């Protein structure tokens, strides 16, 4: 699987396994629908792109994140369809992919069982509800954003694929701060943490688009609280 994925994801660029890419995950996949992952690549000089993927998931890639004016740091939750390596690949200034990974044991069905809101039937009532806040963290601004969305994988009987496809962060002047492509293997009601680099004061606009072309927008006001 590694050879297959590496050829597709890295397209011939050099690949090094690099423990400096920090993957923070819990020791147990308590819920295979919501497995938290934090990637911190601030130790990789010039890190410009982060791909998070799970080799043995049917939808291998979760996100392709371009930090632009953000730190190469990202938290999110992904689905696990079985026991699998979970990895982060970071493009460094040296033109190489720096890859780090952990083996995660998980019960089956993270991608192929319906999401909670489908089972409850209330997904449409809350679709697109966005929550978030900002915290001062050293010189950075920590942003936490969540969005109600079923994130259907297309692998559940009679429920076609329907998920957030892109997320863009912009400052008040419209300058793009970071962007990300998102796949159906990101958890239902996705939640992300970003670290924006200094000098980005004022409100941050969060723009998301899903696979049916719906746009969702939120605005997080100027930094509201200390990170403590």
């Amino acid at each position, binding site marked *: 699987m590694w050879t297959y994925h590496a050829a597709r994801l890295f397209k011939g660029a050099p690949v090094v396994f690099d423990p400096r890419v920090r*993957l923070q995950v819990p020791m147990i996949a308590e819920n295979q629908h919501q497995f938290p992952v934090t990637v911190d690549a601030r130790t990789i000089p010039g890190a410009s792109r982060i791909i998070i993927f799970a080799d043995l998931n049917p939808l291998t890639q979760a996100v392709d994140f371009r930090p632009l004016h953000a730190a190469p740091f990202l938290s999110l939750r992904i689905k696990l369809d079985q026991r699998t390596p979970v990895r982060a690949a970071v493009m460094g200034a040296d033109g190489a992919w720096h890859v780090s990974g952990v083996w995660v044991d998980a019960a089956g069905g993270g991608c192929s069982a319906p999401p909670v809101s489908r089972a409850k039937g209330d997904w449409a009532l809350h679709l697109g509800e966005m929550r978030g806040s900002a915290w001062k963290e050293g010189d950075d601004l920590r942003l*936490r954003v969540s969005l109600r969305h079923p994130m259907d994988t297309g692998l559940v009987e009679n429920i076609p694929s329907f998920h957030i496809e892109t997320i863009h962060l912009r400052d008040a002047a419209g300058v793009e701060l970071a962007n990300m492509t998102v796949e159906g293997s990101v958890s239902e009601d996705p939640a992300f943490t970003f670290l924006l680099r200094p000098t980005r004061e004022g409100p941050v606009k969060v723009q998301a688009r899903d696979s049916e072309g719906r746009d969702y927008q939120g605005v997080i006001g100027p930094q509201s609280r200390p990170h403590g």
Partner: protein
Amino acid sequence: MGNGFTRRAMIGAMMAAPLAANAAQYYTLKPDLVAPGVWVVRGADEAIAFANGGAIANCTILAAKGGAILCDCGPSLAYGQALARLAQKLTGGPVLRVLITHLHPDHAMGAAAFDPAIIAALPETRRELERDARGFSDGMYRLLADWMTGTNVVLPGMDVAPGPFEIGGRALEAIALSGHSGGDLAIMDRTSGTLIAGDLVFHNRAPATPDADLSAWRRSLDALDGREFARLIPGHGPVDATHGAIVQTRDWLTWLESALADAVARGLDMSEAGDIPIPERFAGVALARYELQRSVSHFYARLEANELPRIDN
């Protein structure tokens, strides 16, 4: 954390698994006599794993006229059968009644070894088992493989009503509570003054919260704390001659709730919240980090939805 994955480790794991699965599996149950006619079979203070056969919960055997009363019956058919043989040896008679304290599979799936007509639980526990037992069964077979051979879901055939009752001349009291799950049964053995607390009380082993309502759980702990007893048998961890295990369980739950609220208020993600420092006073509590990370999974999304403001007007 970090780069724990290597190709060699993966190959090693794949080679080791089938060897372990071929080893003969049998439970060696060791009874501890804690009072006349009261034995505890201690579970391992570990997570459910192939290495321990899922035998992680404490089970209690009580002597009665003509046989034995069991409080909880372990994770599997083989465990339930071993427990019945042990009870027969200790009391000289068959199992008269199996009392199930709550739905969780490490306590309840050994019911497969018994006639449903002698298995009793709170009505709420039976409802929860009807809802969840199949899923638990899948999870237990995945983790425990051959240990689970022949284990079918068997539901209690009898309700437990709160208040005093008698089995084989042994005077007991059923205390119907909740909080660890939707229905938590504690049993007072009035003969010996032993309180069998089920998973409402953990002792030197971190509490598990997959079905917990933390405020209801604390109220239940207050109710147990108000009782007099000579000793308490917790669901997990060593027998306690004091109220210390109740205090410790309540302390953990209170800390957990405030620590998670604090993590949400600081903007931490779930993976970060699972790595927050655990207070020194819990240093002797087994599985503290493991259960904290499970609890993050159980509670965090809901806490965040309550705490973070809407930004999408």
